[in-house]
């Protein structure tokens, strides 16, 4: 029995070329919707990563929490703010509290120091070698809200990539072979 002879492929075998094109467009539209929502969020929040998942937790944020970030360069960073920042050469942003701020006349001249709420010492040990302060350029966003547990799916998909490919592959196949 050829691969396409199975009963679940009945509909797709009977589709003419227009319908096949529409099935692929349907799939493309689902992907595009997700993409446009993500990019839309980027524009609205002003942050490059409007939503991030907490990987290593603390008292305030547990592993698997979803964090919403906004980015407003005109709003000066103050001690007490929760900021998400990136260290050079590291991909994953860290969300910690700002404990010290040094400001000069221009906004871009400020320097600040962060510390995780649970940690005994400040984050200088995490910064790049020779770096003692963070600057506004390192900031990716400010923590504005969070949703617990929802991010666990992302963590699972990250830790088990085969799971991601299988789930997405099956979903894609389902959309392609079913009409409406």
């Amino acid at each position, binding site marked *: *029995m050829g691969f396409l*002879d199975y*009963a679940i492929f*009945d*509909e797709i075998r*009977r589709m003419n070329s*227009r319908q096949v*094109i*529409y099935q692929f*467009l*349907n799939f*493309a*539209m689902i*992907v*595009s*919707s997700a*993409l*446009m929502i993500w*990019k*839309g969020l*980027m*524009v609205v929040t002003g942050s*490059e990563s409007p939503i991030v998942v907490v990987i290593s937790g603390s008292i305030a944020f547990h592993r698997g929490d979803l964090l919403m970030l906004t980015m407003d360069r005109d709003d000066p960073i103050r001690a007490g703010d929760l900021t998400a920042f990136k260290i050079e050469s590291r991909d994953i942003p860290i969300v910690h509290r700002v404990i010290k701020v040094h400001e000069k006349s221009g906004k871009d001249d400020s320097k600040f120091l962060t510390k995780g709420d649970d940690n005994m010492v400040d984050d200088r040990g995490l910064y790049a070698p020779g770096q003692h302060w963070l600057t506004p350029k390192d900031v990716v966003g400010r923590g504005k809200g969070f949703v617990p547990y929802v991010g666990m799916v992302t963590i699972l998909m990250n830790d088990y990539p085969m799971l991601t490919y299988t789930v997405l592959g099956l979903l894609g196949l389902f959309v392609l072979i079913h*009409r*409406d």
Partner: protein
Amino acid sequence: MVEGENQEKGAPEPIKVVKWDGPTVKNTLDDCVKKVINENYSTWKERHTLADGRLFLSVIAVGFAAFALVYDYLYPFPLSKMVLATCSISYFVLMFVLQIYQWYVEKTTFYQAAENDGKNPARYWRWSSEMKRYDDKYTLVAEYTQGSRWGSMKLVKSIASYITEDGEVLLSLLKKDVDYLRDQATSKRE
């Protein structure tokens, strides 16, 4: 693929469907109506204007998304802000337009054709169908416009009239009803 007493050499593959899967049954019956018409009515030529409209709208929408993706890749975030905003908004507006198009323009139409017998002005046919969830009643509607004249005829029958115990669609029975609808629609004077 299917062996049975009914299978003759060279006979077309019998059309089978899972008779309990409502949406698939409706789609299959729609396809069979199209097949019956295209194979038997030689003066009818299938038209795809509604489907093409839908494809066109979808392609434009996906185009905006694709453009946004590429632009953001080439000129990363803060630079791409205006482009992303425009594309995002346009995309969702187009999605809305597409939805309106499907609800009000395309509606339940699954087949269009132009009937040209050479002597009279062309008749433009539109066939649509409906089947409620968990219901076995298939509603088939044939409508046409010819210049300023128009006609339509509706038929509601259980799918059991066309589908066997095994889920095979009997085209001959369906053809009878398709012929009936065509004749009735054109005989009523409007």
